[in-house]
């Protein structure tokens, strides 16, 4: 099977004051298969939102793609002209943002907002538009379809608003949806509900998805593959069961250990000190050369200070960028 989206050696930098460039993505590569959910896991500053933006070329003005390719159906999106991009965005690749209350227009009924997306992508005829809008709403809101499509954003709950954004994203039947922290502002029960919506859509429409989050727990039982970003580099990438179940990279391991476990056993580790990753990943504390996680790593070796590790294959699809696994 061929990949629907192939990112190869993507480098993105931001131009800060003066002519100084600060890198946000440093050689990110991965492939997305049709119908696959790729979970991108990263903490603040890891470059995960930059990744989302560069896939559809929606980056802030001071961002600069300094290298790499983003292949979508045989076309390099980074070389595409604005017209070509406009035709791809929303129609073939759509983006879901983090904050549903900011992404929706406050004084337009949500049904109309979904209809506008369809109209902008060339659906013609009032009847077709209305019919299609209704279908999409029925898909996302099996109950109360009409009431919700007639509502204004402020009349809906956070979860319902997020579903409206999903409706907009799938309106034109895209093959890839990029979701940037779509559940971050929701409470856990609603989060689960939204993940359920995504799962159902994947099954029914065969959507491929890039799901960006800082919460590893959301990815289990949801993502097929997990990509762990650290300081703009891929630390680990592989099938969800192996990355989440048996993480190999020291960063992934340490990250998962710092989350308190939900234990059914009485009295296990309550109020005990949680294992933490010392230091932080701010730009000023990154090393000038060597592995970018080296200063915080508990398993560091001499070589880590000298050069950067390259991805080592643990299996056909599981790679880890760490010298421990280089042969």
């Amino acid at each position, binding site marked *: 099977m061929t990949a629907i989206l192939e990112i190869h050696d993507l480098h993105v930098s931001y131009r800060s004051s003066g002519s100084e460039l600060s890198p946000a993505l440093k050689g990110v590569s991965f492939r997305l298969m049709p119908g696959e959910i790729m979970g991108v896991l990263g903490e603040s500053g890891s470059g995960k939102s930059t990744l989302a933006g560069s896939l559809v070329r929606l980056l802030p003005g001071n961002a600069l793609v300094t290298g790499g390719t983003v292949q979508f159906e045989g076309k390099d999106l980074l070389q595409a002209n604005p017209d070509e991009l406009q035709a791809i965005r929303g129609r073939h690749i759509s983006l879901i943002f983090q904050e549903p209350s900011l992404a929706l227009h406050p004084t337009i009924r949500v049904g109309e907002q979904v209809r506008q997306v369809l109209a902008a992508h060339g659906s013609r005829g009032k009847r077709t538009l209305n019919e299609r809008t209704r279908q999409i709403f029925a898909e996302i809101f099996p109950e109360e379809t009409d009431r919700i499509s007639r509502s204004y954003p402020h009349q809906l709950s956070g979860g319902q608003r997020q579903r409206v954004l999903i409706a907009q994203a799938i309106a034109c039947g895209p093959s890839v949806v990029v979701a940037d922290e779509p559940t971050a502002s929701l409470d856990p029960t609603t989060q689960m509900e939204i993940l359920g919506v995504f799962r159902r859509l994947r099954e029914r429409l065969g959507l491929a998805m890039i799901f960006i989050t800082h919460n590893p727990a959301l990815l289990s039982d949801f993502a097929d593959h997990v990509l762990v970003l650290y300081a703009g580099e891929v630390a680990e990438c592989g099938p969800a069961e192996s990355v989440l179940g048996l993480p190999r990279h020291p960063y992934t391991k340490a990250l998962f250990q710092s989350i308190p476990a939900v234990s059914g056993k009485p009295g296990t580790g309550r109020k005990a*000190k949680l294992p933490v990753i010392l230091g932080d990943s701010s730009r000023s504390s990154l090393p000038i050369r060597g592995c970018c996680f080296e200063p915080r790593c508990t398993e560091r070796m001499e070589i880590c200070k000298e050069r950067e590790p390259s991805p080592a294959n643990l299996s056909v699809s599981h790679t880890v960028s760490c010298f421990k696994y280089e042969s």
Partner: protein
Amino acid sequence: MKVEATATGKNVHPLLKVENLVKRYTKRSLAGTPEELLALDSVSFTISPGTTLAVVGESGSGKSTLANCLACLESPTSGNIWFEGKDIVKLEERACRQVRRQIQLIFQDPASSLNPRWSAFEVLVEPLILQRKFNREEIKKRVNYWLGRVGLSQDIVGRSPMELSGGQRQRLAIARALTLEPKLLILDEALSALDCSVQAQIANLLMELQGSLGMTYLFITHDLAMAAHFADEIAVMDRGRIVEQGPPNKIFIQPEQETTRRLLAAVPRIGRGDQSALER
């Protein structure tokens, strides 16, 4: 006030005792017909000194209204809040100010609760200046002491909160709350906006401060796993009521209420095949 048996089993005076607290909001629609919303529906609980009570619940269950009432930011419709044996609901403004010093709040997102145009130093000294009890020397001494205590270095004092990382910012918010040496700290989703690895750092800091200073926490959260790790007792809220309360083990092993079970089912777990929570 009578002595009560508490979660820790010792007989001590509770630091905070809330009795039948009710908060009713009246919403007036454009047509002018008042609509009533019961945000807190006779909530009662106690917290003993040096312990942590976690309040968990979905959005809209009344958790933040509770925090605001306890911090004297909102006045409840009825009910009593006993803090160290004094009913703070009935206090007038001047006396209330004294109590507020003892009860400090830490909010979810330090990026929006700290003034971005101030330096970290200004953020820290403001509460001390407002109290009008300390001279320059003392203020400086306190600021330096608390900076070190929360693990921030002295050289950040000149920076704006926006120049700090998420973890540093929340440490700054904690230092600011602690400069007045409060007895009760209300943590309103204080960890939720932070990255997982930073959450662990801040949780450790809070537990360490509790151990060494005997701090008392009211920990408001929707993260049941963190609540279980952190708290001595968990209260589950649903539509303004506390529907279930008990030690974490009991809540986790024998949840009695549907709300609790629903919250438990929504706790995401890493690397385990728990499908049931997702299928809906």
